């Protein structure tokens, strides 16, 4: 009896749970039919037009009626234009950048496997769309694929037509500043990794792809629709890119375009995100990710194409030397370091942190002294990542300027730099340090100053200290904010900031998450204060629209009279982490985006920096004028180590593996014999 009942009973439970489970459906076992994108491409090619943003404004403000607007649009040329080769202007000044100096070393040896580590497995292999902008993307796109032409990394001065470029997919190009057009003759040798030739159609398709809502990437949608007025196809290998604004870096914008393989994305559709989640898209570069090398959550590898089309071309031939680059996921930094020390990893960027550089791998460490591991400090010249505190002004209290300015004075980055970074770094001054003439010449960050902080907090009503020393206002609200970050390796630094802020009566609660969830939380604008940085790349002038424009803060930021709209909703998934919505700043950003005059843009940039400084949404942290890394002796670099605008030693793939040296090091280690230590500091590009 006792036996019978429970068995019956558990059977019922079992049945119930089976029913419950079956209710969950069969999601995940494949996607539906592939979407046929063909008709949509044709439709888009036939109808899409670039509409100047100010026209939309005129329509919105009522200056133009819908009819007027439609009529104007009617007269606009199509975005996608088809012409014959005879239509190509004959008076163009073609250039091919072949006279620029080559970089990389002719001594480089091809072959071998390089071992690296990842802290997080990539969330996707897509280049765009949700979760694609992760730390692995440079290995799939940014650092390994080819644009039409690339900015020369050592010749960085600004010439009459902008930066200097060396050829990539383009064989030659002509820049016509008057018509804001860049004409390109593609290299007919250029091939996708699946063997298909790279043609003008891939560039046409690239625009279609980035205009498409299916990719779920509003930034790209906007970027490719607003910054370009069209593309003309003359023949299979000749195109012209029409740029919307005659900006000083017009040529770089057009030449930096990277085509999208049309034949690969013929299944583009509403299920793009899932369908292409783990498919490696054909690349113009030397490295592919093979299906069998994707071990999700554990490792991923790049494999060099034996017959890469550009392997003998100038500027490309001495780079991308490894046959295979293996990345294993090692989540814990200490384990990563131990792996490097054991020689399981060839290189380590961890020594970029002073703790590793001075204490854990000091110059008199056996491995360094004996020359087995070489430490390198390389001074580069690039815009600096914006490490600092980003204050979300959409949050209560933080919308008060006095509180924000108080926080500036209560944040002791000076101590962090002096005692944690051992004085190696410098205090960041503005949101755009390292842009040369475009960086504000005189502004500096507010120093740590308890009295000033208290003064500002008092203005905001926080005058009394509670029993724990934290300021309290009349209604009993403590002056306490959450600082969110995805940088676990900077936890200690935040703890210092927290203790120091307590001296000025502010309580920072630390919310330290892993990289992915931290960034997600910040992108969802769920933070009060974010400690993070935007990666920068060597651009001519800084960007403000992404991080400070009102349209990236709220869906409908202002009422018609320019005052804040009380019903506005915070925009998520944008880079305006500070929820900045200031009509005056917006106007300047708009002008800045339209301007084609270096001088005017510079003045605007300074004025904007001043306004941002005044409003105080960003507390500048530090800049590091160099990078440091350590590598085993068998990894070799060119004699001058790296290029001027490199942000990391691996970015330009100039290094190679020397098997003879590897054998030598291994033998020397067995015998306990010392080798000649390497050179440490490369300061040929050091500024003042």
């Amino acid at each position: 009896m006792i036996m019978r009942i429970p068995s019956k009973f558990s059977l019922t439970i079992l049945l119930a749970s089976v029913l419950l489970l079956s209710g969950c459906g069969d999601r995940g076992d494949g996607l539906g039919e592939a979407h046929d994108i063909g008709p949509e491409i044709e439709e888009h090619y036939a109808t899409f037009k670039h509409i100047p943003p100010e026209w939309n404004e005129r329509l919105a403000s009522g200056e133009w009626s819908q009819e007027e607007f439609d009529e104007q649009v009617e007269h606009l040329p199509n975005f996608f234009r088809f012409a014959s080769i005879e239509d190509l202007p004959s008076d163009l000044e073609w250039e091919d950048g072949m006279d620029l100096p080559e970089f990389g070393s002719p001594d480089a040896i091809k072959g071998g496997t390089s071992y690296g580590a990842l802290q997080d497995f990539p969330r996707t292999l897509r280049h765009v769309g949700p979760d694609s902008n992760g730390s692995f993307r440079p290995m799939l796109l940014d650092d390994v694929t080819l644009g039409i032409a690339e900015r020369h990394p050592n010749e960085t001065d600004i010439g009459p037509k902008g930066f200097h470029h060396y050829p990539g997919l383009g064989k030659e190009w002509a820049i016509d500043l008057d018509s804001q057009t860049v004409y390109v003759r593609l290299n007919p040798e250029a091939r996708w990794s699946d063997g298909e030739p790279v043609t003008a159609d891939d560039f046409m398709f690239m625009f279609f792809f980035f205009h498409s809502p299916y990719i779920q990437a509003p930034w790209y949608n906007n970027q490719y629709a607003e910054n370009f007025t069209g593309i003309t196809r003359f023949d299979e290998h000749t195109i012209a890119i029409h740029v919307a604004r005659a900006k000083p870096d017009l040529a770089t914008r057009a030449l930096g375009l990277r085509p999208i393989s049309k034949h690969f994305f013929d299944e583009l559709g509403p299920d793009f995100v899932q369908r292409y989640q783990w498919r490696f898209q054909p690349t113009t570069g030397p490295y592919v990710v093979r299906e069998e090398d994707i071990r999700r959550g554990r490792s991923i590898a790049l494999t060099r194409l034996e017959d890469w089309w550009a392997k003998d071309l100038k500027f490309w031939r001495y780079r991308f030397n490894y046959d295979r680059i293996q990345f294993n996921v090692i989540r814990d930094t200490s384990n990563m370091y131990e792996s490097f020390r054991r020689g399981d990893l060839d290189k380590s960027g961890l020594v970029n942190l002073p703790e590793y550089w001075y204490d854990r791998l000091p110059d008199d460490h056996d491995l360094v002294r004996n020359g087995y591991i070489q430490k390198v400090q390389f001074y580069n010249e690039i815009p600096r990542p914006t490490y600092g505190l980003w204050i979300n002004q959409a949050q209560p209290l933080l919308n008060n300027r006095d509180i924000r300015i108080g926080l500036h004075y209560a944040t002791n980055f000076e101590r962090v730099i002096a005692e944690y970074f051992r004085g190696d770094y410098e205090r960041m001054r503005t949101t755009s340090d390292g842009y040369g003439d475009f960086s504000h010449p005189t502004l500096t960050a507010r120093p740590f100053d308890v009295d000033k902080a208290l003064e500002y907090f008092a203005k905001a009503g926080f005058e009394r200290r509670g029993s724990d020393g934290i300021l309290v206002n009349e209604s009993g609200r403590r002056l306490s904010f959450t600082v969110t970050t995805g940088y676990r390796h900077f936890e200690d630094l935040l703890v210092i900031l927290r203790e120091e802020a307590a001296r000025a009566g502010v309580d920072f609660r630390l919310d330290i998450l892993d990289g992915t969830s931290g960034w997600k939380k910040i992108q969802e604008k769920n933070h009060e204060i974010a400690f993070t940085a935007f990666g920068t790349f060597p651009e001519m002038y800084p960007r403000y629209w992404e991080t400070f424009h009102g349209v990236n803060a709220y869906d409908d930021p202002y009422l018609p009279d320019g005052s804040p709209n009380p019903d506005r909703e915070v925009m998520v998934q944008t880079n305006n982490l500070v929820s900045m919505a200031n009509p005056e700043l917006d106007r300047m950003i708009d002008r800045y985006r339209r301007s084609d005059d270096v001088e005017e843009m510079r003045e605007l940039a300074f004025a904007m920096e001043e306004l941002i400084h005044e409003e105080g949404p960003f507390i500048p942290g530090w800049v590091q004028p160099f990078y440091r890394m350590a590598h085993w002796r068998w990894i070799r670099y060119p004699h001058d180590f790296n290029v001027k605008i490199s942000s990391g030693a691996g970015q330009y793939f100039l290094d190679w593996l020397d098997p003879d040296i590897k054998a030598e090091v291994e033998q020397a280690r067995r015998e306990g014999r010392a080798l000649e230590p390497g050179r440490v500091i490369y300061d040929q590009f050091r500024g003042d």
Partner: protein
Amino acid sequence: MPLRLTKILLLCLALAGLFCMARVNFNLGSGLLLSAAALALYILPWKLDPLTERKLKRFRDIKRGYYSFIFLVALAILSLFAELFANGRALVVKYDGDYFFPTYSSTQLGHTFGLTGRDANSPVNYRNLREHFREQDNGNWVIMPIIPYSPNENITYDGILRPQPPSWEHQHYLGTDSTSRDILSRLIYGFRIAIYFSLAFMLMVYLIGIAVGCLMGYFGGWFDLLVQRMIEIWSLVPFIYIVIIIFSVVPTGFSVGTRIGILLLIMVLFSWTGMTYYMRTATYKEKARDYTAAAQVIGASTARIIFHHILPNAVSTLVTFMPFTLAAAVTSITALDFLGFGLPPPTPSIGEILKQGTARLDGAPWIVTSAFFALVFILTLVTFVGEAVREAFDPRKFTLYR
């Protein structure tokens, strides 16, 4: 005679609890719990039945366990006054003829002690103040605790934040951690949090476990089956993942105290099930005995039968589990901290020091050794107590029929 000692201890515990309550920034709940429990035990007429008295005597005779118990209780009580031993605030300040006792007072600003300039409006740094008064040499002085560092203070003496080896000169007896915080100070506060967290955890787990187990055993039948199945399902939920998941959605805006409370609740929620089965079996056993039947025949209420007749007889087996539950709780909170899912930073905790230590095995071995020995020490004490209790309460030596 020994009873008196126990009573004195209890009284101390009650006072300590009250004292904690009086201070807002210590965990109010656990203070209240502690003092209520201790007071109740103190006030209630302690008429121990001879059998229990014999068990206690046996426990006292097992010297290793008994002294471990005394030592552990003493440590726990002392840790409540940790501010007097390890603190960046002074014990006594004499300034211009007045005496100040900053340990438990609210934060003092520099101008209270005549500091000027940058220090005037900052909270006082008493170590600097001590030097300052020494230099001035006009009768003012500061007495600092033995460990003159708060657990969260980053103190450099060579201008760089990094692990410093143990040093008597600088009063870092166990050295500092990777951002120059005093390890001993952090261990003391970490111990305090861990031990009271575990006590609270144990009390709550037993409360729920005993109640549910008793009900299952007493009512039996369908109720028993249903709850058994529920417990089976419930105990299959992977606890550590739940902690990680729940903690990732808990708003970080909550204060550290609240977050610790939530962690406690989650842990209790997934740990009470283990106790129910023992209790259920014990209750089944007792229920079948004659005295229970007699009580039923007399017409005693269900509550009276459970609490008065069955519980005292059934509960004795559980007592032997208590120290081990405590040890398990200390271990799991340390493990969670080690993994980074426990107490929010910068709360001092043994697990967090252990994590730092394993990251700095080269170059700063004193971090990991400190944490390791502290943990082993606590767990050994608890285990000694546990073994002694188990031996003393061994039912093979005593049986009880009422």
